[in-house]
């Protein structure tokens, strides 16, 4: 039951993109095409889960014993950057089909604030390893859901007549606001 609640709250109530504002850049950049949104979302899911688990282990077994907590930001971001690079090389060598579909998105993920954001969030919330793992999955599924939904709508924007000054980013943001309003309704589910 707890796991179910965690998933519902991370996907719908505290959606990482619409309620916690993490990862807005990829949303505005790639939510113009559904296929790109799915690819990006899948790549983000993969990297967030991996990065959260690895940074969790580093925090627990290297940083905490040596009292290096103050270096959290710099260690986490360097680990994530190295990890993304490594995953890219690994997929290229070992799983070419997967690389073909996700590879182009991987280099863009290092600077995605959702990845570092989730890694730091699970530390601040003091989750254990299993909960962190589940939270990372739930958060990135929420990201995937939001980005794909919005890409579906924004594909329609291209063929719609929008005032010149609202085209592009402004209309995307207002749309995200309306979507976020819809997700706000889930707040009543978990009181």
């Amino acid at each position: 039951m707890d796991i179910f609640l965690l998933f519902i709250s991370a996907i719908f109530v505290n959606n990482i993109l619409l309620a916690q504002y993490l990862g807005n850049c990829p949303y505005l950049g790639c939510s113009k095409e559904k296929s790109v949104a799915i690819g990006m979302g899948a790549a983000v899911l993969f990297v967030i889960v991996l990065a959260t688990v690895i940074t969790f282990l580093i925090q627990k077994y290297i940083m905490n014993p040596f009292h290096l907590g103050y270096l959290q930001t710099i260690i986490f971001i360097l680990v994530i950057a190295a990890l993304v690079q490594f995953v890219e090389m690994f997929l290229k060598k070992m799983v070419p089909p997967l690389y073909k579909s996700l590879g182009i998105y991987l280099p863009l993920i290092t600077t995605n604030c959702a990845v570092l954001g989730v890694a730091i969030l699970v530390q601040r919330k003091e989750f254990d390893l299993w909960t962190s793992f589940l939270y990372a999955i739930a958060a990135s599924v929420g990201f995937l859901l939001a980005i794909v939904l919005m890409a579906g709508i924004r594909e329609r924007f291209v063929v719609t007549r929008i005032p010149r000054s609202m085209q592009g980013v402004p209309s995307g943001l207002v749309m995200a606001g309306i979507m976020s309003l819809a997700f706000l309704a889930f707040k009543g589910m978990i009181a």
Partner: protein
Amino acid sequence: MGSVASEFTKGLWKEIPPFRLVLGLCPTLAVTTSAENGLGMGAAVIFVLALSNVLISLVRSIIPKKVRIACFIAIAASLVVAVEMLMQAFAYPLYQQLGIFVPLIVVNCIILGRAEAFAAKNPPHLALADGLGMGIGFTLSLTFLGSLREIFGAGTWFGHSLFGPNYHPFSFLVQAPGAFVCLGIILAGMNFLSIWQAKRKGLELDPNFDAGCKGCMACKKMDEIAAQKRLERLGAKA
């Protein structure tokens, strides 16, 4: 390359982030629930951006091109750690208010975007001017957006009550949807202004119009991928 003064002032209006140059949206949306938070976040960004610009500009000729992004991130991250410590020591309530968005300055595209687009190509004094200008522009924008949301969403400004006890605040604005809608409308207003100006003077639209977040290379790349996929999809249909 312009003079120090012109590099400084372009960040204040012509390329003001995030209203003209759409950089650093996540903190813009997240921390502007009050004017004070916006100002604090802006101050932290000024510090990191100005110093990272200068440092990157100083080492720009030593960094190999292939690992430049990693180097930029390492430099930005060490500065962010310094900011975190300073804030913990001198502004602890603000540090807690801003939450995870202080460490997230490191992946804020305003830092990497300016490093890539400006500091890596220009001498330190120009990079400093650019960093300060952009940072101050960012602070002004955040404070403006924060004030707007705080005044109408909570009826206060910098914590002082403005309209008396009978005011019924429009609390939509301080919640998540309000942030998106508010920023969207401001950006549309900026676009409208530049269209109107261009029409009045009979000039071409300025190149920053509708640049989206192409200021940072990740988004630019993503835009290109999206455009390519769209062409493929339309091609397959035809």
